[in-house]
């Protein structure tokens, strides 16, 4: 496929999972778009016993009800869970792409998802849903293929990243690149891996996805299971430190460093209104679907203001939009976590979608 950057991927594969049943009219399909580090295993339990990353929200009777909808979730290109990415073999060289994997943009992800849509013979998504970078894909879908989706659910996303967001991503990339094992991106050739750098990158990222309050409530100043004031003179590791270290190490075992660099750059460069005179309302004037926008009160990476800008632009463009700001102390991570109000809002909104499907079939 041809990429926005001008490069061509001679071939690419996309792994995906589906849940529920596609109806006869093939009209009940929902596309789930994953974020920076997500994969195709979004719901249920896989053969290794792993629970899907959005299992709280997808399943029979859940907010995204698989009794009603056929849910599709691919792993996107450039990532590292089976779809073509930096760890895949480049047919031209016979070696893994590594850091030579072409730069990709959100629009490329949408394009590869369109291939999947055609493969599944789906004419129009009932909805495209995503959080964070996933929400950017949902918005991008609404402009790239306006008549190919009826609803878009855009959660904790932004029209473009702030300077602070880009800065955090740059620190993460620098952490990876500073690892001696990075070998200027050629670590696969050296059969090594910049695990320390990737762990550090993830620790920075992970910290910014949480809120001060949530960290305070969860860990406070606890040390090795006891409070620093009560455990006496012995000074151990703070629980927040061991938690972050654990998260970083876990992530560095499963994710590819070049993918992390590639996808954070993709986030940085996303700018929905760039081709529309920097006017988001003008961009959205091309959309045809209805929108639900969701934000979380304590999210400071993609703050409620970002979602309110999206909402305002959609209103200016005269589009159908609803917006909910969910009270949560979980920061950006809230979009993945159980929250009764959030579940209810998504569930009620999607009931609109399923009711519409029922009406059109009767």
């Amino acid at each position: 496929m041809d990429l926005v950057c001008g490069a061509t991927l001679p071939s690419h594969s996309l792994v995906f999972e589906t849940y529920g049943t596609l109806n006869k009219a093939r009209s009940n399909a929902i596309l789930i778009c994953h974020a920076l580090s997500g994969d195709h295993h979004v719901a249920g339990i896989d053969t290794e016993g792993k629970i899907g990353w959005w299992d709280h929200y997808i399943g029979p009777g859940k907010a995204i009800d698989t009794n009603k909808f056929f849910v599709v979730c691919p792993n996107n290109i450039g990532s590292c869970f089976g779809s073509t990415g930096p760890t895949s073999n480049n047919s031209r060289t016979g070696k893994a792409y590594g850091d030579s994997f072409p730069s990709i943009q959100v629009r490329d992800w949408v394009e590869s998802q369109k291939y999947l849509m055609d493969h599944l013979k789906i004419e129009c998504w009932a909805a495209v849903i995503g959080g964070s970078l996933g929400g950017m894909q949902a918005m991008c879908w609404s402009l790239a293929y306006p008549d190919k989706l009826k609803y878009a659910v855009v959660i904790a996303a932004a029209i473009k990243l702030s300077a602070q967001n880009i800065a955090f991503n740059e620190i993460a990339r620098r952490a990876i690149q500073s690892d001696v094992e990075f070998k200027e991106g050629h670590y696969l050739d050296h059969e090594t891996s910049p695990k320390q750098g990737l762990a550090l990158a993830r620790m920075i990222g992970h910290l910014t996805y949480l809120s001060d309050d949530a960290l305070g409530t969860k860990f406070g100043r606890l040390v090795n299971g006891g409070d620093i004031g009560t455990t006496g003179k012995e000074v151990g590791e703070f629980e927040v430190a061991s938690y972050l270290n654990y998260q970083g190490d876990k992530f560095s075992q499963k994710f590819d460093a070049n993918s992390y660099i590639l996808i954070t750059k993709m986030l940085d460069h996303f700018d929905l209104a760039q081709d529309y005179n920097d006017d988001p309302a003008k961009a959205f004037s091309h959309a045809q679907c209805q929108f639900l926008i969701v934000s979380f009160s304590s999210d400071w990476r993609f703050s409620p203001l970002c979602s309110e800008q999206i909402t305002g632009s959609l209103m200016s463009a005269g589009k159908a939009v609803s917006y909910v700001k969910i009270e949560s102390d979980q920061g950006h991570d809230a979009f993945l976590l159980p929250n009764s109000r959030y579940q209810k809002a998504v569930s009620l909104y999607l009931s609109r979608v399923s009711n519409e499907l029922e009406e059109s079939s009767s």
Partner: protein
Amino acid sequence: MINDTVPIGAWIEPKSRLLDLGCGDGTLLRRLIDDYQVQGYGLEIDPDSINLCIQKGLNVIEQDLNKGLKNFPDNSFDTVLMSQTLQALRNPHLVLDEMLRIGNRCIVTFPNFGHWQTRVFLSIRGRMPVTQQLAYQWYDTPNIHLFTYKDFEALCSERSIKILKRSFVGSQVLGLNNLCPSLFAKTAVYHLAK
């Protein structure tokens, strides 16, 4: 529930852009969309009411009116509507100014505190009125700014707000609301412009 949609409908241009501030469960907005095909958006703060709006298929935006409306550009709506909410705002006069900035025209409805029932309640019983329309005790009422329609008109005159039309809803007997709205109008409905 006082039916204040009758005069409102007459002032709304079919297919125009409408912003409903404090849309509640969306009953009125749904009706205006169904009857006049307006492109309507409702602003609401209460999560349960927002859910009801979503269920009704409405465009509902979660926003606290007390925190301002700066996110809305000048003249971005044909009509900005506020039904039975002005008395619950922290700064009604400032919101009114904002409504007139955002909307070409504004429609405001509010309970007339001068209605004879509330007067009787206060003067005879010496207690803050609790009526069907103002159904709260003084300590837990959302209605923190109670005023009469005459107070409202004084405010309009102070702020040079043009009253295009007004209508009173209340007692059906002998057209008393129009004869003596000060005593008999339960709800006052105003059509305003800058």
